[in-house]
């Protein structure tokens, strides 16, 4: 037997088949563990679409083809075996088409909103430049996969903007945002104050930072509103604490307005002083005052995802570090223009507008649990279409499925999410599946004849 024959016999052998089957099982099992620990996308990228998986599937195709060639010319009793094996190859071919030419994204809109962009899971980094707020030009737009090719300080991902560069130095796939307030020297930053409102039951401590050009900044804490004013703010309504800085001193001037008694108490305080407000035993404490304050964003890397983690990257521009989270915009200033960076999910234009007219949800009786939900969508040239679970819209080769919903604020109106799908491999997958099932049935029916033939073939 020639070397070629030997290799061919090995490739056509059932040993390889069992090896492939077991490997597929093991890789898939690892994938499910990854998915449980991390998330579906992580498992897909690291396992299901990994080079190992493609390698094993490639070997499977070779094995299936080789074994069929080996049995040539086929007899009647081969029909089940041939059908099943061709079915698997066609299914895998369908999967390849889906992977490379398919679209699997989502489109979301509020009621009354129009959208024509499908959001994909892949990421994209784009840079625009603008002169004095007018005319925005796109400088570059690139697909990035920092998860697979993470940037580092040593080998950053470099973006060129005219003659300047931005260097992406860090990428956290599961980042958690935290902020801290620091003293600043820059003239764009305004004063900041940290205070505490406390009694036996509640405890708020907050920062209020007022922009350098703003006249006041405020926060509503339930029992009262706290206003950080430049001195021009006038009491409006309800319980209010108005805080003002005094020129050239660290003292804070306060006035406490109580709505129920229409009374005002005024005074000055330093950091650390406690002031009785007279509301449910609440004490106001001035904790810290900064003449110029800035909120500094930082990210921490998490090992595993949870609901508050999201992708974030750190970049350097003109010696300064900036953080960007996924789907955010960053402005970088140059002497005469501004660069606008966007880091977000890749979006594609589907070529027509979809408008969400209505969103309805039925709940199980006496509960807040959703039973069904549906969207009424305006489709150009078609009119109004009702999309609900298991009743998708098929339009221009794409399919739109009702996949979920969300609320921008608690008890607010619902927004609808449709998953959008274009799958050129669909027909192949269905056809392959059909062959596989038919083949398996025939295979077991004719198994005796096939078995004897195999026994001879394998010696």
């Amino acid at each position, binding site marked *: 037997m020639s070397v070629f024959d030997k290799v061919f016999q090995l490739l056509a052998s*059932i040993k390889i*088949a*069992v090896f492939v*089957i*077991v490997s*597929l*099982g093991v890789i*898939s*099992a690892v*994938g*499910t*563990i990854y*998915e*449980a620990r991390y998330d*579906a996308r992580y*498992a*897909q990228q690291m396992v*299901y679409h990994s080079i190992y998986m493609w390698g094993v599937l490639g070997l499977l195709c070779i094995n299936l083809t080789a074994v069929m060639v080996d049995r040539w010319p086929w007899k009647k009793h081969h029909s089940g075996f041939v059908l099943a094996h061709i079915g698997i190859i066609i299914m895998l071919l*369908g*999967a390849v088409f*889906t992977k490379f030419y398919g679209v*699997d994204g989502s489109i979301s809109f509020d009621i009354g909103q129009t959208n024509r962009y499908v959001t994909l899971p892949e990421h994209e980094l784009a840079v625009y430049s603008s002169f004095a707020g007018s005319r925005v030009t796109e400088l570059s737009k690139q697909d990035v996969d920092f998860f697979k090719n993470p940037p580092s300080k040593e080998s950053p991902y470099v973006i060129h903007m005219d003659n300047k560069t931005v260097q992406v130095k860090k990428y956290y796939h599961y980042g958690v945002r935290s902020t801290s307030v620091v003293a600043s020297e820059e003239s764009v930053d305004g004063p900041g104050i940290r205070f505490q409102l406390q009694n036996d039951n509640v405890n708020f401590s907050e920062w209020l930072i007022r922009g350098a050009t703003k006249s006041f900044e405020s926060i509503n804490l339930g029992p009262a509103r706290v206003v950080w004013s430049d001195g021009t703010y006038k009491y409006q309504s309800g319980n209010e604490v108005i805080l003002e800085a005094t020129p050239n001193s660290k003292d804070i001037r306060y006035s406490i307005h109580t709505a129920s008694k229409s009374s005002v108490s005024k005074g000055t305080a330093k950091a650390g002083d406690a002031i009785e407000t007279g509301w449910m035993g609440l004490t106001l404490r001035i904790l810290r005052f900064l003449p110029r304050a800035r909120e500094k964003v930082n990210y921490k890397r998490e090992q595993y995802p*949870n*609901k*508050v983690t999201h992708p974030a990257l750190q970049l350097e521009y003109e010696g300064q570090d900036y953080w960007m989270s996924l789907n955010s915009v960053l402005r970088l200033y140059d002497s005469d223009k501004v660069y606008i960076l966007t880091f977000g999910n890749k979006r594609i234009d589907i070529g027509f507008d979809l408008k969400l007219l209505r969103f309805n949800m039925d*709940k*199980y*009786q*006496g*509960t807040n*649990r*959703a*039973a*069904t*939900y549906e969207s009424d969508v305006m489709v150009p040239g078609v009119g109004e279409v009702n999309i609900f*679970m*298991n009743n*998708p819209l098929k339009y221009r080769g794409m*399919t739109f*499925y009702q*996949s979920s919903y969300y609320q921008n604020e608690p008890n607010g109106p619902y927004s609808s999410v449709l*998953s*959008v*799908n274009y*799958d050129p*491999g*669909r027909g192949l*997958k*269905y056809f392959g*599946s059909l062959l*596989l*099932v038919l083949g*398996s*049935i025939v295979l*077991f029916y004719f198994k005796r004849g096939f*078995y004897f033939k*195999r*026994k001879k073939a*394998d010696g």
Partner: protein
Amino acid sequence: MIRCMYSKLWSVHIATVFLLVFSTGALAAELTDGLKRLPVQDLGRLKPFDTFARESLHLVYGKKKYNGRSAVDVVLTWMLIPDYWDEQKVVEIRHSGLREALKLPEKELFYSPKELFFNERMSLLFQQLKSQQQSQNKLNPYYQAVQRLQNQMAVFHMIKTGNGVRVAPHPEKDTWLSVADLDGELATAFSEITRAVAQGVKSDGAVDMALRDKVTEAVKNFQEVARKNAPGKYADMSRIRLELHYNEFHPLMWSWILYLMAAVLMISHIISDRKTLYQASWVFLISGFLLHTYGMGVRSILTGRPPVSNMYETVVWVPWGTVLFAAILERLHKWKVLIPAASVVAVLCLILTDIAPSVLDPSMQPLEPVLRSTFWLTTHVLIITISYAAFFLAFALGDLLMVYFLIDEKKYAKQIQNGVRSIYRCIQIGVVLLAAGIILGGVWADYSWGRFWGWDPKETWALIALLGYVAVLHGRLVGWIRPFGMAAWSIVSFSLVIMAWYGVNFVLGAGLHSYGFGAGGVEYVSAFVAIHLLFVVYTAVVRQSRLKEQDQ
């Protein structure tokens, strides 16, 4: 205000009466029969008071009865004499870490609502739970126990105050009126029920038929008033009655008793070779199967969906398939051991559904929107789970063959040959069904989510199980796997099915298919799998050494 005083009046009146009786003897069970079919709105559906009481008692107390008193009696009196129940040890805390955290006596399992309510550490625990929930982390068993305790306290409190017992439709809203909300004529009619119950109690022990009828009358009268109050919105009584019948008749219990008889008779037949035993075994098997079918059928009518939408239902459905396959194969191949093998599987599964309600929740909960789908969902789940039934039969046969191998391989050569043939048949049936089911699952996913295959853990594990069995079939094809291997692999491969069926929801706990499943029993299932794997290894070692001896 008037309503308030009125309800106070009846509750005081009744409370004194009840306290007398509860301290002396049990409330006669039949007295409250009429109350069982009172429709209650709870957790998104209408159910008879009987079901409501059973589920509530089970949630709070973890058992079906309290000191021999029926759930209906207990839950009704929570509402009527709350002060008495506040003192009773009726709240179950299973998690020892939680008992420790609450500084409760270590040895006890049950505590009174009062001692828990006044436990200083309770609010702290609930706060910690809240922050755990807010951080969106998966709850560990300790926090699950805290969550359960919170739930138990809430349910007890809601029933005690009457706020959680929704008995009459609201004229405008979807949410029904609770006992505490009742007003005017409704309140009067409801107090008639409790008054009748209270009077019945006085007769101490024996049930006065007249009083029992009085309770039933009062319930009927209340239903009439409720119906009039919100025309067209009252419950469909035929469904309520059907559910009550299902609760009381308990067809699945009778089914496993009959299967057990069938198994015993068939084994006796195999030993004694008496023909009547064989026929009798079939009669019991078929009756058991019919009751099994009836039970699943009634449940399907009640839930309005095929009986495969949660763990409990599949554990009932799979042995049905196992018995069916065994019966067909027995008729074809005349291999009698199939009957006891399948019966044992069925008895095991059905007993499990009876004794482990905290793991296999029998309550008929409404479905998540995505699962309220139609044809393809049903078909793919039915087919995949029925393939598990075939693998389960192969597994049981494998176990049996292991015993034959251990005792005497030569003497039982015929049985082993038949057994291996049946295992092979079962695996073939399973593989075709599982492949078809996975593909139909793909069709359904494509239909509802637009993805033929999304690497969801449940579907992936079904695929892994399929690959496992396909590997076994291919191994057999080239003679790597011989009769002993076939029996051994039918047991080993079934671990993959257990992972796909149970493990994905309870061990991995991730993915689209993890809707509405509880948690628990992992240690028992792992032990089950481990014992079987050890059994296979042990048999293989014993057999190898025996074969070596023979060679020498």
